[in-house]
């Protein structure tokens, strides 16, 4: 009874990519063999789900992908108004346990006369039988002899448990004969379960989805914040932000002790920091590293505001309280282009950071109105003239409900090549919020297709998108 884990996902793995486990067992040839997979919240007895897998042909391995199940436990934390947070919805820490089940046979060595009935026993006593009074059993002879003893095969009830190695069945005594060996199963196909024969503790799946190239090269140690770890974001290196643009970058705690700080250093030498949320029980954190996230820093060099008029870019990086850098530096360029109108759309990128794009050119604000009406009766008897009468303002056709949905058509300014590529993640994100006058409103991007433009084909890249506010405006009727 042994299960070997032949393959498994990395300790930290994007939950929207395949999470494959491969198992082997020494018992795959047992009747009705299935691998059992149980997934628990890490360190608890709370079972999230359980699955059974058939061994695959030829090698008998289990081929297990729990990605689709894990995704049900992954979402996003809205970070609005927070400097940093433990993003508990962004990840799942779990324990995974592997077991197996199969129809266990009890081997008998002979049939015997038990008080007028046929019994089965095992001599010498090696393996106790699992049966209790009333069990229905299926008896299979190793070699049916082709005589009256064939009657031993079939479905019977256990009417007496003589001892751990001897049972009496509902089969009346068939008569004496040469010894016969065989197996006894539960009649109902019942299998015996052997759980937690192997396990993996504390695996973390985060709200991330990589494309084939990224996933092929994925190495969770890149994101381990131990000196040169990376943030969990796909932001390009030359990413630009306006002075108001919020960015909540995600990072893997990797058992960070308390007392971590996000440092900021500008192209002009200003340096400031802020403490960020960290906990060794939390997997992923979010920290605002742009816009309002730069307002309340403890300045090490220079004075607030961090971004003065001469700053061309700034870098953010994670340090401990001794200012030892624990991550690579992530550079962000300042976008100081003029705006005709100004909107931002915050979105969840593919590794779970909230990033944003500004829309600084002319926008179009459109409403879609849908009226529901009916034609109702008007007029009544005039008791003075005793005739049918009505008012000219009486309603015949009457509106009883109006739906108003508002769409915004937004235009970006000129984008860099890498921003153009990154823009795809906004278009396809499941979490998007439009910032109107410093407030975020949930919205849905209406685009169903897009083109990734590159500067080698088109020098000036500008994007237009349509978004619809998630909540319709009520209309009084």
């Amino acid at each position: 009874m042994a299960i070997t884990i032949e393959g498994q996902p990395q300790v930290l793995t994007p939950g929207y990519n395949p999470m494959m486990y491969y198992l082997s067992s020494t018992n795959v040839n047992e009747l009705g063999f299935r691998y059992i997979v149980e997934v628990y919240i890490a360190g608890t007895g709370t079972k999230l789900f359980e699955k059974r897998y058939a061994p695959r042909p030829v090698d008998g391995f289990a081929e297990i992908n729990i990605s689709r199940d894990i995704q049900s436990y992954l979402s996003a934390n809205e970070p609005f108004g927070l400097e940093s947070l433990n993003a508990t919805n962004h990840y799942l820490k779990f324990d995974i346990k592997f077991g197996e089940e199969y129809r266990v046979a009890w081997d008998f060595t002979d049939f015997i006369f038990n008080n007028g009935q046929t019994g089965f026993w095992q001599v010498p006593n090696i393996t106790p039988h699992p049966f209790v009074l009333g069990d229905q059993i299926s008896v299979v002879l190793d070699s049916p002899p082709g005589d009256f003893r064939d009657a031993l095969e079939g479905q019977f009830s256990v009417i007496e448990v003589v001892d751990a190695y001897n049972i009496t069945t509902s089969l009346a005594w068939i008569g004496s004969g040469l010894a016969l060996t065989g197996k006894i199963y539960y009649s109902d196909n019942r299998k015996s379960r052997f759980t937690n024969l192997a396990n993996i503790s504390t695996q973390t799946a985060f709200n991330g989805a990589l494309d084939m190239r990224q996933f092929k090269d994925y190495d969770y140690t890149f994101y381990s914040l131990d000196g040169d770890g990376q943030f969990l974001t796909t932001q390009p290196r030359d990413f630009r932000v306006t002075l108001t643009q919020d960015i909540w970058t995600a990072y893997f705690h990797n058992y960070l002790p308390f007392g971590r700080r996000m440092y900021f250093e500008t192209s002009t030498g200003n340096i400031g920091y802020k403490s960020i949320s960290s906990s060794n029980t939390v997997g992923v954190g979010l920290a605002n590293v742009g816009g309002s996230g730069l307002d309340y820093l403890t300045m090490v060099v220079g004075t607030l505001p961090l971004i003065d008029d001469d700053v061309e870019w700034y870098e953010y990086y994670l340090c401990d309280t001794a200012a030892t850098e624990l991550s690579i530096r992530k550079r962000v360029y300042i976008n100081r282009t003029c705006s005709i109108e100004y909107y931002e759309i915050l979105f969840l990128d593919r590794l779970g950071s909230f990033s944003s794009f500004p829309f600084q050119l002319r926008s179009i604000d459109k409403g879609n109105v849908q009226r529901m009406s009916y034609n109702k009766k008007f007029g009544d008897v005039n008791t003075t003239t005793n005739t049918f009468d009505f008012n000219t303002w009486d309603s015949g056709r009457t509106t009883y409900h109006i739906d108003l949905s508002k769409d915004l058509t937004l235009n970006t300014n000129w984008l860099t090549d890498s921003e153009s590529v990154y823009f795809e993640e906004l278009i396809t994100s499941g979490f998007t919020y439009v910032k109107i006058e410093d407030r975020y409103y949930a919205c849905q991007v209406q685009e169903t297709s897009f083109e990734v433009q590159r500067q080698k084909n088109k020098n000036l890249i500008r994007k237009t998108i349509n978004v619809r506010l998630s909540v319709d405006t009520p209309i009084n009727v």
Partner: protein
Amino acid sequence: MTLTRIILLGIDNYLEVSEDVVVPINFSIADIRDVQAKSGSYSKSIKVIGTKHNNEVLNSLFDVNAVTLTYNLNQKQPCQILQNDELILDNAILQLVNVEKISNGMNDDEQIVYTVTVKDTVGDLFTDIGNAMLTDLDFSDLNHSYTSANVVASWAHDVTDGYKYILPMSSDNVYQLPEMKPAIYLQTYFDRIFANAGYQYQFDEAVTIGFDKLLMPYNGDKVKLSEGYIEEVKIIAENTISTEYFLGDQLIIDTEIQDPNSAYNPATSTYTSEYALNVPNTIQFKFILDYDVILVNSSAIVGICSSNGTYAPSIFTEAIGVGSTTTSTSAIDSITYEIGDLLPIGSNVISSSVKTIYSLTTNVDIGDTVTFDFINTDIPPIFNNIPSATLKLRINSVRLEIFPTADTLGYLFPVVMNQHVPVQIKQSDFIKSVFTMFNIFCQPDDTDTTKIVLKTRDSFYDSGIVKDWSRKLVKDKPHVIAFLPEVTSKTLTLTYGQDKDPINTGYLQNVSETYGQVKYIFDNEYIKNDDKKTLIFGASPFVDTPFGAVVMGINGAEPKTLPRIVYDGGMHSCGTFYIYDYGTTGETCNSYPYTTHFDRPTNPDLDFNFGICDYYFSQSYQNTTLNNLSTLYWRRTMSQINSGKLYIVYLDLTPHDIANLKLNDKIYLDRAYWNINKVIDYDANSNDTTKVELLSIDDELILPRIVSRPNNNPNNASSLVKPFIGEVLSNINGSLTINASNGNVVLNGKGNLIDQQVRNAVVIGDNQQVTKNGINSTTSIIATTDGDVPAIDVSNFQDTKVALDVSNGQTKMATIQIATDEAQAITLGFETGTLYATPTGEIRIKL
């Protein structure tokens, strides 16, 4: 590009299939949605374009004036289908169904499309047997002579002999030969059905599951002699010379027309019996008479009737045997005179006619002689004023035919086995019912086009091999998981047909379900409706006999049931019983063939009912068994329906996959194993993906607990048992009686011959010739200490009316009640002298 061709085997040619034509082929052996339905593994209509080559191969059959040269429309055309030279279908049967033509231009028949169907041999078998009946099969090779010796000899038979006699119910330990009827082995039916259709079958499990020991007993009315046989053995004699007979004269019939066995002596007008038989078998005598009844007034004055009376000229048939004589009387005419009626002087023809008169004799032995006399059977009138009036019968011509009765077979008569086949049963229904019993799947043999392989469903799937189709799943087409309970009904009952015999009817009345049925109730609470899969066969309750045998609860002489299936459980010991060919000549037995739905009389190990009954009509079996039809053959199917899944997917199946497809393959897909329910419209003329329905494999499923019930069987006196057994025993009495009476005759015995003139009688005991109204008993029916008949206050009696001869020569009507048992007799208050029935049907008097 796909190149598909249909190879026509035998005529060494092929049909071309145009690239743009769909060649859809379905594969399915059984659909889980209808567990009783069984089909061939594939079938479909295919359109074949009328290319020059195809037109030539099909002999230009598009032309209504075409004369076929090489292609025979009516002959089965074996074929293969090749897809890109890969053989994807072999051993198929092609049939040209129709030709469709369109002409848009000047010429006729510009566009021609032939429609052909391609099906496997299983589908073809069911087409072939179509509406054929079981009675279309020939079992004449099993014919034999009807004797108790042959009956007993058959008990050593097995399936290789084709038939075996079964032992039916009896109220005592004596059987008359006509109670014995042969049962033909189920496998013998199968052999002949398949052979007749040009097929053979292979059923490797036949012995293991007991298929080879199943018998289908005779289920019809009394077996009649065939008209052909009667004509063959009939004796014909006549006398065309007008002859006058006085009372007591023997009829003279002296010209022999036909006498195959020289049994009639025209010189003495005597028939010597060539048969030995008992009631209910008879020898019939048919007289066609042209006669005058003459009453002679020999005096010189006209006679005047002074006392009412009737002349009833009759034929008195007397069979004289060694130590016994049997007589019967058949009236020819009836002429009544009343007081004052005149009888003219001389010979007066008082009646003339041409009539056919029947007479019979029974309980005769070979060599008994039979003669026919003229008698009067009524009280004649009295003519006081003349010395006498003489009755004469002038027979102008008479034709006598002698033949055995057509109603039942008798000793040494030929048993025509074709007469013992259930009538009005289609061969296809028969096969489907057997398939339903054992959940049998059938598929064509891989190599032999004429062979069909049968397997029980579990064995079929268990023998499948694993195929990994993980990479054939078309992930971007919908793959749907349907939960099987959603496609079925809430309950599914597997049952024998509800028979109308007293025992099965009684069980239904008491339990509200059919004997031996099982009802599965599926867990899903959203579904409704009840589904019932009913066999054409009836259930076969078993009962005890007085001599310790356990037998089918049927009236052997005329079962009149649905076809039954019973297991040949071999010989078992019992008390002594007898099977009489005639008289008391026959076989004495101390063992009997056990043939019920169990495999043995006690502690059975196999049960051919679907489920365990609420109770049985005999307690002798001791412990029942869980190994019934539903447990052994249906539990996994039911579990599959209850908790299985139907996975409907699109797969990238190649011609190689189809060529190697077995419908019991275990398909590994989506990290689970599946059985194939259906392959839908595989297009053999394209490279498109194919829709496939897969089923959860059995070992994923927990099987339902086998329904078992405690052994709380009622005893033989219980109202759950006794009335229904009693009714069958009563029917047996009726079947073993020749009752020529049109009156009210209560029978409590068998082997009795009730004469035509009997109007009201109670017959108690066996083998009597009842000629008088009243109580006819072989034993004293009223027991008193002094032997006298006690005074009975008839006003206290109810129910059964009988005639009592009160010993002064007069008959009075009385009404008596026969209590159902001794206990009721006491309850009724007539503790002494009350009639009551015993469990074996005897009538006794409470002392």
